[in-house]
Structures are given as structure tokens and as C-alpha cells.
């Protein structure tokens, strides 16, 4: 009975994870194929090259070449790594997209971590009149869905002439979002009050207590907030779609969608190579920060 149960559990897990992996593997595989092989039936997982062996000699088979009866066709696995370079060239402004995206990531991560930490500190480690009432207001703002504020915020940025620039995509991150403030506040409250009291008696100013005592102790929580913000900026599609107008200002996400809308439904190998390039940094980042990730998500789920 116990072994039967074990077998079933492993069978389900293995088949389930195979199903979850297939789309990603298919993306990588298609991205490394020549165009004709992306649409060949039946599909092949490994890109190949065909050779003709006629007598002793082995030479590459030409496209559509009919092979004589004496010769045999040999298939050898061969990845088209050049697709990556070709996809980058085909997307035209790829280096700009990458630069814009990294620029936004840098600014939004810095902005979010700094401003949320400041606000969370003010909401948890200093006693002042009206603090808790204001924090309830902060929590309430989390309920407002983005579409409600989308149009007025767009008009606001338009009135200062920022449409078509990257500014609307990072300025807001310096204004401490309620969710991150909530998350960090939970963490700040676990640090003993005596620590701040002792520093205050020694004549330490509030900002120094924040910067030199509390922040270093909260590094794990700050990591979570920064990491999530990086992912959000890297993945964001709606923001760039609304605010950016010039192709050279696009982010990677918007640039890829633009490329697809131009070449849709044909150049699948380039599309998949480009998708791999955009997904890969996120996957690599996940493997290096897995623990922070999983803990962060569990934290938001259980405390929220």
C-alpha cells in the first residue's frame, strides 16, 4: 500500500512537471531551429542538419535536393545558435530595449526599496498622533483597481509633458506603494523596541537609527521587496504600452510584442529566440535567489 502510494505520487509529480516544462523547452528548441524545421511535421525536438552520404563522402544536403538511390541521408543534431544574433538584429532596437529596461529596473528597485522602507519605518517605529488611522487609509488604497486611476494618472503625466518618455514608468516607484509598506512594516515590528530606545538615549537621530540600526537588520525583507519590484518592472507590459510612443524608447517586453505584431505568425524561430532572451534573465535570477523568492511569496500569502 505504501509503495503503491509512493509510485502514484512520483508518477503524478513527474508527469505534471513534464507538462509544465514542455512549453519552455519548446520555446528554446524552436528558437534554435531553422525556419523550415519549426513547421515540419511531425515536429522534432532537436534541431538538425541533413547530410548526404554518397560513396565515401559526407556533404550537406541542399534545400529540396532529391537524393539518388545509392546515397543515404544522415541527420545530425545541430543547434542554430546564430538565430540569437539574427533575432536581435531583426528586432532592430534590441540594445536600446535592453538599456531602457535595465535603466527602469535600476530606478524602480532603488525607488521602491528606499521609499517603502522610509514609510514603513514611519508607520511602525515612531509613535505619532494619527499614525494608525493613516495606515488604515494606506491599506484601503490597495483595494483600488488600476483601471480606476489609469486615465487620470495618464492625463496627469500628459499635462507635464511626460508621455513618450520613461519618466511615468519610474517616478511613481519613489512614492512607496502601500503593499510594500505593509510588508516591510510587518518586518520592522519584529525588531525589539529597546534597540531604538538605547540609540535614542545615546543621542542618535531618528534617521541614523533607521539607516544604521533598523535597515541592516531588515536586509532579507528589503531583498524580497527589491526582487519583486525588479520582476514587476522587467515583466511590465501595460505601463510601457500606455506611456511609450517612440520605438527606441520601448522596453524589452513592449519591443517583443511590437516585433510579433510586425512579423506575426511567420518567423517563429526568431520570435522564440527573442522570447528566450527575455525569459532567461528571470529564470537565472530565480535560481540564484530561490530562497528569497519562495520565502517572500509565502510571507505575502500568509500574512496577507
Amino acid at each position: 500500500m505504501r509503495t503503491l502510494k509512493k509510485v502514484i505520487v512520483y508518477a503524478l509529480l513527474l508527469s505534471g512537471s513534464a507538462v509544465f516544462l514542455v512549453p519552455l523547452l519548446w520555446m528554446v528548441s524552436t528558437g534554435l531551429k531553422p525556419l523550415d524545421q519549426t513547421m515540419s511535421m511531425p515536429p522534432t525536438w532537436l534541431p538538425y542538419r541533413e547530410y548526404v552520404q554518397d560513396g565515401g563522402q559526407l556533404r550537406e544536403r541542399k534545400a529540396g535536393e532529391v537524393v539518388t538511390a545509392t546515397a543515404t541521408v544522415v541527420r545530425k543534431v545541430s543547434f542554430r545558435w546564430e538565430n540569437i544574433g539574427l533575432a536581435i538584429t531583426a528586432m532592430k532596437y534590441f540594445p536600446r530595449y535592453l538599456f531602457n529596461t535595465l535603466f527602469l529596473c535600476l530606478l524602480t528597485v532603488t525607488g521602491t526599496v528606499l521609499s517603502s522602507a522610509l514609510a514603513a519605518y514611519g508607520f511602525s517605529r515612531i509613535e505619532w498622533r494619527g499614525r494608525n488611522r493613516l495606515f488604515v487609509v494606506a491599506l484601503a488604497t490597495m483595494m483600488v483597481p488600476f483601471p480606476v486611476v489609469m486615465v487620470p494618472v495618464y492625463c496627469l503625466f500628459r499635462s507635464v509633458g511626460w508621455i513618450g518618455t520613461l519618466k511615468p514608468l519610474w517616478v511613481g516607484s519613489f512614492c512607496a506603494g502601500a503593499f510594500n509598506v505593509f510588508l516591510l512594516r510587518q518586518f520592522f515590528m519584529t525588531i525589539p523596541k529597546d534597540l531604538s530606545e538605547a540609540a535614542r538615549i545615546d543621542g542618535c537621530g531618528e534617521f541614523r537609527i533607521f539607516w544604521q540600526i533598523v535597515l541592516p537588520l531588515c536586509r532579507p525583507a528589503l531583498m524580497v521587496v527589491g526582487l519583486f519590484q525588479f520582476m514587476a518592472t522587467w515583466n511590465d507590459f501595460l505601463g510601457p504600452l500606455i506611456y511609450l510612443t517612440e520605438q527606441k524608447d520601448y522596453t524589452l517586453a513592449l519591443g517583443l510584442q511590437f516585433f510579433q505584431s510586425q512579423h506575426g505568425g511567420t518567423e517563429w524561430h526568431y520570435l522564440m529566440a527573442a522570447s528566450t532572451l527575455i525569459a532567461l534573465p528571470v529564470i537565472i535570477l530565480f535560481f540564484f535567489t530561490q530562497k528569497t523568492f519562495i520565502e517572500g511569496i509565502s510571507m505575502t500569502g500568509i500574512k496577507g
Partner: protein
Amino acid sequence: MTRGERHSLWIGLLFVSPWIVGFLAFTLYPVIASTAYSFCDYDVLSKPVWIGTLNYREMLTDSVFWQSLRNTLYFAAFSIPLGLVMSLSVAVLLNQSVRGRSVFRAIFFLPSLIPVVASSMIWLWILNGNFGLLNHALKSIGIAHPPQWLADPAWTKPSLILMSLWGVGHAMVIYLAALQDVPRSLYESADLDGAGAWSRFRHVTLPMISPVIYFNLIMGIIGSLQVFSQAFIMLGGGGPQRSALFYAVYLYLNAFEYRQMGYACAMAWVLFIIILFLTWVATRSTRKLVYYAAE
């Protein structure tokens, strides 16, 4: 107020000032302006013109609006429960004493991290009617005429629901963390009472993780009613016969394609009310089922 109190009030306000600025500029002002715009005819280029409740009345007779609402509710009605069952099942499997748990967890979690643009490209390709991997697989198990997925109005929504199930890893991680927090002693006493596997799950596991299920349910309602990016990227303005024109997509089109900002704001408020209503219904109907151990 004493001098000390006044001092700490100023220091406190100074620390939370980034939030206050953001609250005023990006929440309070937009909420007020959005309410006002929703009673106006506004195309951004010229000044808003007050038209009373015309936008809201227009919604009642706008058949595209109703279609987008139906599409969205259809999507939510399937993706939320299916996603819940799927993420919870995977989490329960991973919570058994299995080797390589962290590897499995990473594999199931990974798809939910992939940027939505990239995952949309992947699924456009997999769901391709002629050369897609899915239809090839279906043909190889004997289905001669598999659906044309994104080209067939009857299959666009199921396609997007299928795709949403690929991204349940996030919820799965939350469930797994909750399952690991269930005290072992509860299972031991259930064993002593002679409870079987199902009855242990039903009477120990489910009540203990019910707050997390409730949390994921609410997040699911909020998220799936605002589904936008994948539908917009894969099917543009709504796909064949507007079969995948979701609420948020129609709202976006009204705001930024048709330049009917007033109508878009009115739609946004109706969406907010629908979300609040469904959240209230979900809270009411699960109130007796959610168990808070610590309180």
C-alpha cells in the same frame, strides 16, 4: 500636544512623506478625477464636457460592453476554481515526503515567473492550429480534427484558461508554505482517532489552510476580472468575433484607441463595484468555512 509629541509627529510625517505624496498624486487625486470624468465626455485633447449619467446609461445598451463582461466572467468562472484545484493538488503532492521537493517546486513555479509577453508568444506558438505542438499531440492520440484554438471563437477563452493554469505556481508556493505550517500533532491525534487519508485532509488540512484558500480566492477574483496583457498580446482587439474581448481590454481600447476617456472611467468604476460585490459574496459565503487558529 507636548513639545515631544509635536516633534515625533513631524518626524513621523517626514518618514511617511513619500507615501503621502504618492497617495495624493496617484490615488486620491485620480480617484476624484476619475469619478468626475465618468460623468463627462472627454477625449484628452479638448476640455471635459459634463454629460451627467450618459456614460453609465450608454453602458446598459452597449452590446460590446455586455459581451466583454460575459467573456470576463466566463474566464473567471473557470480559471479561478480550476487554478485553485490545480495549485492545491500540486502543493499537496509536494507536501508528501518526496525526494527532490525543491526541484519539483522550482519546475512548477517557474512558468509563473516568465514575463507575460514571452509566455504569450510561447502559447501563440503552441496553440497554433496548423503547426502547434498541442494539436500535434492531439492528432497523435487520434483526434483527427483538433480545434483551431485562437482562430475559433468557441475556443479562444478555453485557450486562455488553459494558459492561465500554466501559471498557478505562485499560488502553489503559498499553499505549500501553508501546508507545512499545519502542526504535525493534529495529524497524529487524527491518526489515533482512526481517520483515513481523505478524512485527515477534509477535517484537518482544509480547515487549517482555509485562510490561505480564502486569500487566494480573493486574489483570483481581483486578478481574473482585470485580465489584460495575455489577451491583448495574443488576440489584439478581442480575437475572432470579439470572443476574447475582456473587460479590461475593452476599457483600454475605449481609453487609448477610441479616446473616450469618460466612458473608460465609468467602466472602471463599474468594474470596481463588480469586484467589491464579488469579494463581498465570496467573503459572506466562506465566512463559516474559514478558520483562524490564532484568533
